[in-house]
């Protein structure tokens, strides 16, 4: 009974717990509920992955309405993989948020904060699991609206303007997606993704289809911060509360990358997307410019959260580069980096949140010498930083290795060189943080601080160690990503 309804529970559980959080009204009770729900979501995601690995894609008809008419939830390898990382990040960020939120959010707003976090989680999980194009838009807006609220809860008043800017650009992106879905419906009379894919097949020359494609790619591009449509991202990540920055950076853009994969490969099909519309001609140059320019901008940031935000735009570009290469290896690299970058950025932002908890700032000059007083926090930061650079034995190395392999298969030497150069640029900006924290003396007039409390350290280290563990034992991630990539390219079983 429960096992058959897992796909529905995955989304409905966090969605219904959100109003419960508001009813509970008190910060700690709401936190407890949210944390338990996030763990249940992780357990469901893991169970779904096992089901998919054992018996192939799981189809779930909502309310028993058969597929093209009713809303269908579909969990295939790709979806199960992304569900696992989204739920996994949530299950580490939610326990972490107790202390962090008590410090950063007004007491009377805390229950609402957890409600918004749960709505955001429900939306993100729903986007991944749904097999219906319009349902995807609705869930996208559920997660987006709760995200704007979460960003605006930051302490700095610039959080408000950041949230506003995000709202405007996010809504334009979502409306573009709505227009695209509408045009597809006009053309085919269906909203079910599998049904759409079938009916689009004979319509490749249709102007309506081409317009829909353009609207969808631009709309999704805004959501995933595809350079140069990334302008909302740096401010939103910088001024949001620490827990929110960690959750967003690790999940929101990743889910948007997943949506791009779904539309390009599953719905429009490889042939239409890349041979008729040549979308790779846009994705690859933009990705290359983005990795280079955004890494360069990151070097000159003095606010570490902002530095990591720009680095996120660069890292998302690695994923679109992998998609643009359009080979099984390229897609494997994109999916792997989606998974791995979530672990890396999650750990980095959680470590920064712990620093912020103690000294109330993440400015480079305020972080001088902090490693002596908070050795465990900064050690986790360094571990995740090594992973971001792509040092062997970490997850960052695995995904960059596959990305370089994919470029080599194509014989694109310049791209390989550029990937290596941008990795070196990551060394430069992360070194600035490490130098300030480890090699500068703590100014005498600063008050002494102690190590971050366990409630913050434990989740941070769980993610940091996941970077190490999954970097050494790559069977799970590479196996699932490789199989998912084959299926997306239409080669797999």
């Amino acid at each position, binding site marked *: 009974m429960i096992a058959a309804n897992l796909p529905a529970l995955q989304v409905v559980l966090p969605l219904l717990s959100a109003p419960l959080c508001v009813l509970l009204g008190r910060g700690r009770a709401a936190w407890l509920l949210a944390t338990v729900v996030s763990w249940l979501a992780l357990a469901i995601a893991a169970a779904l992955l096992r089901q998919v690995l054992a018996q192939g894609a799981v189809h779930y008809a909502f309310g028993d309405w058969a597929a093209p008419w009713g809303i269908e939830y579909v969990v295939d390898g790709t979806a199960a993989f992304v569900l696992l990382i989204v739920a996994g990040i949530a299950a580490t960020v939610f326990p972490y948020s107790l202390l962090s939120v008590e410090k950063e959010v007004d007491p009377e707003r805390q229950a609402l904060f957890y409600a918004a976090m749960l709505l955001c989680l429900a939306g993100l999980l729903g986007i991944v699991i749904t097999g219906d194009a319009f349902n995807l838009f609705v869930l996208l807006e559920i997660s987006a609206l709760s995200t704007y609220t979460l960003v605006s809860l930051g302490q700095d008043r610039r959080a408000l303007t950041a949230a506003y800017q995000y709202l405007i650009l996010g809504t334009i992106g979502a409306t573009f997606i709505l*227009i695209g879905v509408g045009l597809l419906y006009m053309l085919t009379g269906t909203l079910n993704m599998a049904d759409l894919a079938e009916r689009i097949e004979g319509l490749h020359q249709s102007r309506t289809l081409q317009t829909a494609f353009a609207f969808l790619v631009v709309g999704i591009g805004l959501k995933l911060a595809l350079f140069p449509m990334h302008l909302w991202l740096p401010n939103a990540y910088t001024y949001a509360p620490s827990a929110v920055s960690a959750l967003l950076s690790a999940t929101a853009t990743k889910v948007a990358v997943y949506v791009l994969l779904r539309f390009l490969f599953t719905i429009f099909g490889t042939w239409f997307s890349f041979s008729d519309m040549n979308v790779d001609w846009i994705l690859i140059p933009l990705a290359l410019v983005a990795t280079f320019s955004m890494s360069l901008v990151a070097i000159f940031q003095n606010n570490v959260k902002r530095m990591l935000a720009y680095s996120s735009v660069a890292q998302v570009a690695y994923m679109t580069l992998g998609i643009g290469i359009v080979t099984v290896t390229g897609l494997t690299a994109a999916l792997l980096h989606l998974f791995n970058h979530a672990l890396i950025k999650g750990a980095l932002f959680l470590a920064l949140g712990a620093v912020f908890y103690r000294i109330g700032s993440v400015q480079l000059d305020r972080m001088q010498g902090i490693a002596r007083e908070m050795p465990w926090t900064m050690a986790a930061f360094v571990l995740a930083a090594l992973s971001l650079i792509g040092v062997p034995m970490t997850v960052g190395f695995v995904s960059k290795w596959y990305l370089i392999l994919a470029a080599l298969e194509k014989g694109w030497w310049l791209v390989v060189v550029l990937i290596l150069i941008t990795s070196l640029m990551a060394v430069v900006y992360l070194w600035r943080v490490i130098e300030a924290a480890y090699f500068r003396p703590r100014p005498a007039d600063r008050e002494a601080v102690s190590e971050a409390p366990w409630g913050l350290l434990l989740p941070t280290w769980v993610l940091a160690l996941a970077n190490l563990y999954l970097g050494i034992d790559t069977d799970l991630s590479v196996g699932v990503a490789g199989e998912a990539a084959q299926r997306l390219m239409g080669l797999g079983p």
Partner: protein
Amino acid sequence: MNWVGLYNYWIVIFLMMTGFYIVVSQGNLVKKLVGLNLFQTSVFIQYISMGKMPGGTAPIESSAPAVYSNPLPHVLILTAIVVGVATTALGLALAVRIKQAYGTVEEDRIREEDRNV
């Protein structure tokens, strides 16, 4: 090509571009939201137009054969309207909070305030 017969789509395009232009060009946060609303409304009309059949009636089952309008786009757009209302409400709430924090809802003055700090 029947240009005049497609007049509702011309309205859609006109509204969409007007709304988009207002969002981009206006510096006032509330006016930006008005533009955003126009932009979204155009999509509502697009969806409603596509469900319309010439001479179609409401889709109510009856013994006499009749042409029905497609109700699905209408239902879809009801959902999108709800989303639009929520977005507008949230946007206005943010504008109120920005007014409290900065004392203005003009974009250039907000930027100036941030630079001074």
